[in-house]
């Protein structure tokens, strides 16, 4: 039972990180209708920036804040400079441009910070004896902290989307860009802010992941894939879906690695494929996604 609880909390913590990344993907998808392939890499860059700042003596929480600002600026810049000028938003060309951003950021990180793995301090107490015992299971405080971060961020996002004018604008643009433009919403600024927000959330996810996973250039590659699976599972235009999808994927991963010996971590993706197909064949737009109605 205690082992089950430990695995459950670890799964939830990993799931929270996937949920954060999936949220970032959903925010971008709602505004631009694209999967942001560079999301993970911008996060990795932010995590390395955190490492540089903490090494120079800044407290960890402040470094993460600064890195989130950097993530905001980079991601907003990608929207304004790379994505928007592409003629007619041609989907193929946007995908190629985002793959270009992915490559460039990935290799830029390797150039600036080298290829050696680093360790990143956690913002929560993370020494060997920092755990609480719940029902006999030792639960690390840092893992609980990650889940807490997700809950706080969800609350803030809910406030922003539902109680502020900019949030209203973002919902309107997600619903219908042309009409939003007609009623006087500055669609351009809303898109830039949406992408920037996604970049900042991505950096937060990377900074939460790096202390337990180790900081390398490929930190976010696996999590990005799982987060996209989570976002699709929940419905690409649904924030609730992203969170549910992320937690489901995190728990599935923890239980497969923990309990199904003959599959283990190596066969994670075949299992994901089965889950994804099972859900999408019943609900083609994901669990919480809005179904598109087409007229001919």
């Amino acid at each position, binding site marked *: 039972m205690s082992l089950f609880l430990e695995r459950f909390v670890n799964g939830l913590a990993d799931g929270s990180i996937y949920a954060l990344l999936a949220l970032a993907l959903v925010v971008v998808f709602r505004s631009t209708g694209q*999967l942001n392939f560079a999301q993970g890499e911008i996060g990795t860059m932010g995590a390395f920036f955190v490492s540089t700042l903490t090494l120079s003596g800044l407290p960890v929480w402040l470094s993460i804040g600064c890195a989130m600002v950097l993530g905001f600026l980079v991601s907003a810049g990608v929207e304004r400079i790379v994505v928007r000028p592409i003629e007619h938003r041609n989907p193929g060309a946007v995908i190629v*441009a985002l793959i270009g951003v992915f490559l*460039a950021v990935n*290799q830029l990180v390797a150039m600036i910070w080298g290829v050696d793995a680093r360790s990143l301090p956690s913002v929560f107490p993370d020494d060997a004896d920092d755990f609480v015992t719940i029902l006999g299971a030792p639960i690390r405080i840092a893992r609980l902290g990650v889940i807490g971060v997700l809950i706080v961020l969800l609350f803030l996002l809910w406030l922003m989307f539902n109680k502020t004018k900019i949030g209203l604008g973002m919902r309107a643009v997600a619903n219908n860009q042309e009409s939003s433009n007609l009623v006087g919403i500055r669609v351009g600024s809303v898109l830039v802010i949406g992408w920037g927000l996604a970049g900042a959330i991505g950096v937060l996810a990377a900074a939460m992941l790096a202390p337990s996973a180790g900081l390398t250039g490929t930190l976010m590659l696996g999590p990005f*894939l799982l987060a996209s699976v989570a976002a699709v599972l929940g419905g690409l235009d649904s924030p609730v879906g992203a969170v549910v999808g992320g937690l489901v994927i995190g728990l599935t991963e923890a239980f497969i690695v923990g309990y199904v010996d003959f599959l283990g971590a190596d066969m994670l*993706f075949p299992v994901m494929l089965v889950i994804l197909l099972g859900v*999408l064949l019943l609900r083609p737009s*994901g669990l919480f996604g809005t179904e598109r109605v087409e007229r001919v």
Partner: protein
Amino acid sequence: MELPIRVAKGSWQNWLGRLVLFGGVGLFMFRAVNEWSRSGLGLLADALIIAIAVTGLNLITGYTGQLSLGHAAFFAIGAFTSAMLVTGKVWTPFFTDNIWTPGWTFVAAAVVCFLIGMVVGVPALRLKGIYLALVTLVFTEAVRAALKYEEFEGVTGGATGIKGLSYLPPSWTGLDGRADLVTWFFWLSLAILVVVSVLSAGLLRSRIGRAMVAVRDNETAAAVMGVNLFTTKTLVFGLSGAIAGVAGSLYALKLTLVDADVPLFGLFGSVTLLVALVVGGAAQNWGPFVGAMFYVFVNDFARSVGEDPSNSVLFGWLVDEGTKLNGLGGVTFGVMLILFARFVPFGAVGTMRMWRSKAVLVVPRVPLGSGGGPSEDVLGESGAMSAEQAATNIDSAEPPGSSDEDPPGLAT
């Protein structure tokens, strides 16, 4: 003379244009074989192999409009099929000693990938756009994981893969065994690319080809017009996968080994194929060739930029002490992709075609004596009208003079 010049499809001017194009590419190939270094020719062969796989991807993503990030899986399955058959890892009822001639494994790879592709095509009936792309992407990673899985080690070689493949040129080619291996793979890839391109061009002119384009342009309308979505999608996914599979087995034999960690067999491979397709021009018959050449050679150029020590003067301030500039090549390539997407959004071939159409326009030939209007004879011959013919007739059912599509050859 007024621009654009109109040239009728199938007229001698049209054929002359094609001759110049094919002649130019052929000349380039001959020069490459005779004058390029072995490593350069190896790169060219790689580009041709990628072009074959992209030709397959073009069928499903370019012409049928189903975004697939799963073609690296077919590439890998083709490669492993060849490797397993050549080394006799699996029992087969044909070919004594269980060891296949490498040439026949292309056929086997095509059949295996066709069947798997048909199955992959089934989800495409329900899923659209990014959803389908993500499912096929997870399919790629799932196949890679299965190929690496230790329980299957007896067949796929597990994490170490299968080594020691070889495909020496047969004696009738006059090539000298190991010395001319690169030349042999170059010709083989070129021949297969030509065959595959001709077959895919033929497919596009057939009933299935028209159905593919109809599905891409508007799936619901196509279904209403009587296109069978199930048959079209599964069949085209199968054919597309089969072509990628043949490219994969060619790649495996050229590489002489397969293992699940070969970059082109995973996520990176799927992305490579898609980038090559978009950069060359989706739904363009020369797109895969141009895109693959761009990908391989520009990537090589970017790497040489990264390895050039003189560039460390420019970027040295950015770099940590002790780390090399090896990232600069990747950054260069990434920036080039961004610029390409910005300035050539419809791919190299699509953009070139747009420019060319300002000077020379290829227009369909109009039956003799019809004067630009619909011809009774043409409609009478075919009996039933297809949707496309019906649409054309509606467009041209106006007085001949008012049509902006003048009869070809008469424009001055």
